């Protein structure tokens, strides 16, 4: 008896250890959320407004070390709450039915452990959410990041089901130790039963593709994304999809933003062949990268059409510390964020919301899905 108790005790204790860094299966369940107090969640009729927005974990234009020329890591809680309130307010103003979010923190030291998915559900007219972590670790022993849980989320007025986290390939241009502590990017996909049209199910699909890989990881990410959408398409169902693709549109004027993004003390373009490039600022790391989105444009309907996608009024991103001159911030200088559907967007419904450039280093893009349109 004593022996059994001892063995049980040891097993219980051994069972208490969660992984230090969470790794994911190729496919796993997304984490489900609900607003504490729901607004009307019945779909009546009319278009469905879809928004994609990389909200940069609510730090707005804070000079964060990881994605700008800043060297700060942790913003104070009051400012994060202010930023998140502004994001919630704008989502409310847009009156979106479905929101595809990237870079959302749910339990991270850098954002005071605020559960931003829950916060947005509780402070907007959105009722349901699902979340897929892309970076989950008890402690990142670098740059004071500490505990982190950040990822993608789909928020919706209507109930979500069958929410799935689809793992994307890891970068192959990192050593084992860096890769262990690094991001595990994903696609999150969910069904929205309220929007079923006849026999056709309705899906929302959200992606945040790699930004900083210098190998062809981005190609693997887009390939997996295209494969995921093709599965829905071949089942005869509808989808609305989007996210931060970290890719510029085909035919963009420039594929090299190193000069625009360079930080003091950095060295770029020093070799005869123009290398090295700044990670995340160069879009020709592998053959075919400038045209990486062509299959999406060829197959599906884009919210911002091919005639407009390279116009400045549809740029969605600039690093938060980018400056045109000593006093003027670069608000946006490239397009990285997209919306697509295999259905139809309502005419003239698409918009890049450049007025809210101060709320993140990415801008929201919205469009209205035409329910019943063929």
């Amino acid at each position, binding site marked *: 008896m004593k022996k059994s108790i001892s063995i049980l005790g040891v097993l219980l*204790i*051994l069972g*208490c*250890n969660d*992984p*230090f*860094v969470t790794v994911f299966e190729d496919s796993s369940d997304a984490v489900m959320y609900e607003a504490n107090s729901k607004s009307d969640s019945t779909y009546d009729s009319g278009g469905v407004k879809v928004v994609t927005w990389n909200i940069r974990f609510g730090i707005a234009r804070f000079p964060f*070390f990881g994605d700008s020329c800043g*060297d*700060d*890591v*942790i913003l*104070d*809680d*009051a400012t994060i709450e202010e930023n998140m309130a502004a994001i919630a307010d704008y989502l409310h103003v847009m009156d979106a039915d479905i929101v595809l979010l990237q870079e959302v923190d749910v*339990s991270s*030291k*850098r954002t*005071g*452990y605020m559960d931003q998915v829950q916060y947005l559900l509780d402070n907007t007219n959105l009722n349901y959410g699902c979340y897929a972590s892309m970076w989950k670790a*008890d*402690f990142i*022993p*670098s*740059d*004071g*990041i*500490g*505990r982190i849980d950040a990822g993608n989320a789909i928020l919706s007025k209507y109930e979500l089901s069958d929410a799935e986290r689809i793992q994307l390939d890891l970068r192959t241009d990192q050593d*084992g*130790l860096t890769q*262990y502590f690094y991001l595990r990017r994903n696609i999150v996909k969910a069904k929205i039963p309220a929007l079923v049209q006849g026999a056709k199910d309705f899906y929302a699909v959200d992606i945040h593709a790699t930004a900083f890989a210098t190998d062809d990881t981005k190609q693997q990410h887009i390939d997996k994304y295209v494969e995921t959408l093709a599965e829905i398409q071949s089942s005869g169902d509808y989808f609305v999809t989007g996210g931060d693709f970290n890719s510029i549109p085909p035919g963009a004027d420039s594929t090299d933003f190193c000069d625009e993004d360079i930080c003091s003390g950095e060295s770029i373009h020093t070799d005869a062949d123009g290398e090295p490039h700044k990670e995340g600022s160069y879009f020709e790391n592998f053959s075919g990268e400038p045209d990486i989105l062509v299959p999406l444009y060829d197959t599906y309907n884009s919210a911002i059409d091919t005639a407009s996608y390279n116009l400045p009024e549809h740029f969605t991103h600039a690093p938060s510390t980018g400056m045109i001159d000593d006093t003027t911030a670069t608000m946006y200088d490239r397009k990285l964020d997209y919306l697509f559907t295999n259905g139809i967007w309502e005419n003239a419904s698409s918009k890049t919301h450049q007025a809210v450039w101060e709320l993140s280093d990415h801008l929201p893009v919205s469009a209205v899905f035409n329910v019943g349109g063929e």
Partner: protein
Amino acid sequence: MKKFIFYFIIASLVFGETKKWDAHSAYLLPQKRWEMGLFQPFRYGYSESIEYSVHPLWFFVMPNFSLKISQSDFAGFTSASQYKMVYPTPFLNMIAKEGIMGIIAPDFQMPPMLGLSASWLMSKNMAGVNLTLNGGLDLGFAFGDLDTRSTIDIPLVYHRLGVYYNKWGIHTGLDVQKNLTQKFTALFDLDLIFLPMTGLAEVQIDPDASKLMGEYSLEHKLLLIWNKSENFRVLTGYKFVMGEYPYGSDMRLLPYIPMAETWVPIIEFQWARKKR
């Protein structure tokens, strides 16, 4: 007050009971004996009533010093008081940096900080089992602006440094030691660190302070000890920590190897000698 100080000094001079290999008890080291381990401090029996200890490897980046003084027996227990002092600032500023091993964000400059701790220890042999009870008060002084976002939110560390943010804390514990054979000993210990609810007024000014309220850590250790000789021993076992952190409750079995995602047993070597 004078009477109290006089009594305290007299009580301190009482020769305590000495014992080898018993760092956490009220027993002091025999005079002129030293003991140290890979992960344990260097301890020295200065006299029959005073023992001091320092973490020699940590000393140059985190000056620390501890003094154990024997006291009069209390309720049949051998008693001692222990006083600790630590100055963690140089080490914390070393790890407040960019890049790998940047444990604290480089945004923060840690101010001069002083940690003081006083404990009362009581030990007794009961039916072949050595029992030690301890309890005490921890004080943390920060001589400058200590940003609440600079906490290190991991087991063992968070609550020890939490005292600087909370300004004070209390600790209590229980150690049970039993000789299994002539060469083997088992040690079971349980420690509770508590950062009591304080600073309500501060929370009005700084909402971050609310995260530090009422947080506890329960630590438990089970060790099997092989006493090779009076001068060398090997310890193995585990440490279990559960507590409340700024992000919620958590528990972990230690030591834990992150990349292998597995627990491994503690392996500790300890040496001792007697100074001639």
